[in-house]
């Protein structure tokens, strides 16, 4: 019988009712290869006890924040971001900042910064129109060294789908940058926190490599 001392680490995937979490869970289970338990949960106590936390999110920012407040998960998420390996995805990354232009929504304020909308009518260097949402595979330039980048080449492509982008007040929080056409923060984080605008669970080999490193990560950066 397995005792608590030898129990496998638990990765809690925070479910606050926003969108499809099937892929996040399946991708984590795949890369964990049985060495960690992936637990989809709405329970703040489970988030509190977990060894690692994945904080996804999709859909409208206001609804995400509303559900987070209503579910009682907000404090557990903030405590996790302060204390253990923490991976934010998409709106789950945006929520770490102060405020979003989307629905003029106050967010968690874990980091100072704004979430802003891509302007309409932008063009790239060749004069091609840039659509919003920014949807598809774009390159991520690794602006700082980080253990989670192990095995991923600088400039690897990841899958994005978003109309709003993160602008942390402290540029040192940016770990990865993407151009559309101006450079925005594709990854933010510090210490135990790593949060991506793109979807690693939809980014094939590079995305799975990132999640595999997260499963093994001790939270030191």
């Amino acid at each position, binding site marked *: 019988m397995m005792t608590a001392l030898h129990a496998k680490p638990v990765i809690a995937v925070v479910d606050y009712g926003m969108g499809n979490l099937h892929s996040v869970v*399946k991708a984590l289970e795949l890369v964990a290869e049985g060495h960690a338990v992936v637990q989809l949960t709405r329970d703040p106590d489970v988030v509190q006890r977990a060894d690692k936390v994945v904080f996804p999110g999709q859909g409208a920012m206001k609804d995400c924040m509303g559900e987070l407040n209503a579910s009682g998960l907000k404090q557990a998420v903030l405590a996790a971001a302060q204390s253990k390996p923490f991976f934010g995805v998409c709106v789950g990354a945006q929520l770490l900042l102060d405020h979003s232009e989307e629905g003029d929504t106050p967010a968690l304020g874990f980091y100072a910064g704004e979430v802003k909308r891509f302007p309409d009518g932008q063009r790239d260097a060749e004069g091609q129109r840039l659509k919003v949402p920014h949807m*598809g*595979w774009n390159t991520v330039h690794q602006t700082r060294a980080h253990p989670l980048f192990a095995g991923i080449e600088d400039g690897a492509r990841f899958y994005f789908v978003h109309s709003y982008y993160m602008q942390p007040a402290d540029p040192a929080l940016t770990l990865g940058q993407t151009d559309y056409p101006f450079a925005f923060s594709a990854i933010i984080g510090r210490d135990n926190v790593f949060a991506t605008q793109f979807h690693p669970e939809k980014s094939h080999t590079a995305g799975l490599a990132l999640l595999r490193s997260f499963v093994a990560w001790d939270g030191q950066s």
Partner: protein
Amino acid sequence: MPLAKRIIPCLDVTSGRVVKGVNFVGLRDAGDPVEIARRYNEQGADELTFLDITASSDDRDLILHIIEAVAEQVFIPLTVGGGVRRVEDVRRLLNAGADKVSINTSAITNPQLVADCAAKFGSQAIVVAIDAKAVTPENDRWEVFTHGGRNPTGLDAVAWAQRMQALGAGEILLTSMDRDGTKIGFNLPLTRAVSDAVNIPVIASGGVGNLQHLVDGVREGHADAVLAASIFHFGEFTVGQAKALMQQNGIEVRL
């Protein structure tokens, strides 16, 4: 380096099998959807689209099981369309593992469905599929059709795409209905007119017979993504070959 143009293999699914026909008749069996999805994923497909063309309501739930199985093994975006009528249909598909759901005929009969789904699940999850064909010999005006191109709706395709964007669609899947299954290429003036008229991404579909057609869809049609079925299903071309040709033509792709 900029955002890559996407190549999206499309799997027409009926009663649990992938099929391909010409103008919706003469369906040929092309295989097991999960197996085909895995193959395209390995070839470097940027997304996959599943179109459920099951006629019988008894077999409708099969697509949910297929999507669940695919989503456990394939970690790229999955879009599902066909027979979506209610907010609940969208919810079930998203819960099964779809990232986007495509709404076609129901967007015409009930445009509010697009607004409701976009508000509920976010615009990024809602694709509106438009089947259009030229209604002038000059190929300069296009109408939206339903039922495989048989039923005219009286709606102008460009205006309809703009209206769908305004209601919250996050992407347009535009099928050149007069080209579907013909292998003579996309209707490029139609594709360009729609893509230039909206600010959301447009996927070009219908009529692809060779890899140059995919290049033309991006270069001439201004499509953000190109979708094809039969050229990939029967092993004529791989996704990798398509990307290589696009890259040779100066198009940004994910390799």
